[in-house]
């Protein structure tokens, strides 16, 4: 409930002069359910789901690095994702369900990010707030979540177009539109530009996860004291490093010629 608080000269101060608890349009319960905190909790849970997915993805990618049988293992793994639970459920049923689930998580996460960021930018005095702002605690990662997030979104779109839809085809033989999963990976990462682009993308993911994992656990209430805060920080560093080096392991091995077709 906003009111014009003070009108002096050319300036109108807009402040909430009423207690919202006396505003009959919504109950306190409804207001709490629509609050920044409730939205943040949704954002944390969806974010943690995405981190779990990344860990699963990381594990699958590692199959490519198994000596001698890596390519067959990787192709088999890649194929089984499509036919998982097949004779029990219709073909691709689980895959479609899983994709919808991940899409929902991404949608909830991004929607909350956009709403909260716009709100937060308006709440401080954005831009040049203080003549020389001196930060004492916040990390670079924490202050740039929205930017690393935007890089990640574009990266995900390019990644799906390249490896799932095969619309972006890097170094495919002339006239060929589809190749085996392991060939998609190896052909792509023999091109240095693609490796560099993925390194930038993974750096963004690493930075995002470093603060995101910590922040998500704090938001759902895991930070109960100084010790648990340290523990959460250590875990987020481990997860962030795992993401960067885990996902860059295969591209780098291919780029330096350790893995070839």
């Amino acid at each position, binding site marked *: *409930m906003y009111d014009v608080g003070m009108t002096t000269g050319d300036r109108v101060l807009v*402040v909430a002069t009423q207690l*919202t608890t006396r505003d009959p349009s919504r109950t306190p*319960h409804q207001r709490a359910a629509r609050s*920044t905190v409730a939205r943040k909790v949704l954002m944390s849970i969806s974010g943690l789901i995405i981190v779990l997915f990344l860990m699963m993805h990381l594990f699958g990618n590692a199959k490519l690095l198994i000596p001698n049988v890596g390519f067959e293992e990787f192709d088999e793994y890649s194929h089984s994702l499509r036919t998982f639970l097949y004779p029990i459920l219709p073909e691709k049923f689980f895959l479609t369900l899983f994709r919808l689930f991940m899409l929902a998580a991404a949608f909830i996460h991004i929607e909350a990010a956009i709403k909260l960021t716009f709100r*937060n930018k308006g709440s401080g005095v954005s831009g040049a707030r203080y003549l020389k702002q001196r930060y004492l605690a916040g990390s670079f990662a924490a202050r740039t979540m929205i930017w690393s997030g935007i890089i990640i979104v574009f990266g995900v779109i390019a990644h799906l177009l390249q490896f799932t839809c095969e619309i972006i085809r890097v170094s495919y033989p002339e006239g060929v539109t589809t190749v085996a999963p392991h060939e998609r990976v190896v052909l792509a990462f023999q091109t240095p530009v693609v490796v560099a682009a993925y390194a930038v993308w993974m750096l963004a993911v690493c930075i995002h996860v470093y603060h995101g994992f910590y922040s998500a656990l704090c938001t759902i209430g895991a930070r109960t004291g*100084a010790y648990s805060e340290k523990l959460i920080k250590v875990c987020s560093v481990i997860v962030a490093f795992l993401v960067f080096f885990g996902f860059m392991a295969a591209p780098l091995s291919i780029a330096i010629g350790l893995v070839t077709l």
Partner: protein
Amino acid sequence: MKLTLRVWRQDAGASNGKLVDYQIDNIAEDMSFLEMLDQLNEELTVAGIEPVAFDSDCREGICGTCGVVINGTPHGRGNSPVPTTTCQLHMRSFNDGDTIVIEPWKAKAFPVIKDLVVDRTALDRVIASGGFISVNTGAAPDAHSVPAPKLKADTAFDNATCIGCGACVAACPNGSAMLFTSAKISHLGNLPQGQPERYRRVETMIGQHDAEGFGGCTNIGECAAVCPKGIPLASISQLNRDLVSSLFRKDGFFG
């Protein structure tokens, strides 16, 4: 000690202000920051210039009235080795010849009244919306009649030390008052007397917090770094736990 002060000057009712440079000399290192401003104001008055308006009251770091952003950190925490209020920051934290930038708290919910004075009544309304307990008044009950576990009583006390200065809002890149709100939630939520209204309280206070135009928390941690009373970030997690819990209770009532 000779200093250059760059002070935010904003007329009452003006929509914007600007930084004005003042030279000041003969500052003793044992003076508090506010005493230094007092001396500046005396010199300005003698020179026929409007003195700089700033808030202060107890000047012993317990009332939460004073507070300016000094060199980009609320209460000048960046210049001080310990968490401090502006009145307890002493000039020994600065060097001869320094330039000190002095600005008011800046947040959407804290409109500037004049110069370094901002309107912090938004915080009062957050408290009024639920930061209390309802008890029948009368003779004080015996101290041992309501047992409170030691650990919880300590947490409640630590959070009760919040003086409501608003430094957390001024430091937060999102302009969020989450540390302030969570201090009251943790204070009352950890005591037996706070239980009947515990979940209703978190709902009404968060509703008011958001209505005032404060931003949301992104766990950056600037607030706790400048808090003169050392309110921990763990309080914010307690608020989050209580809010989530309240959403599964009919209208936030206990039980």
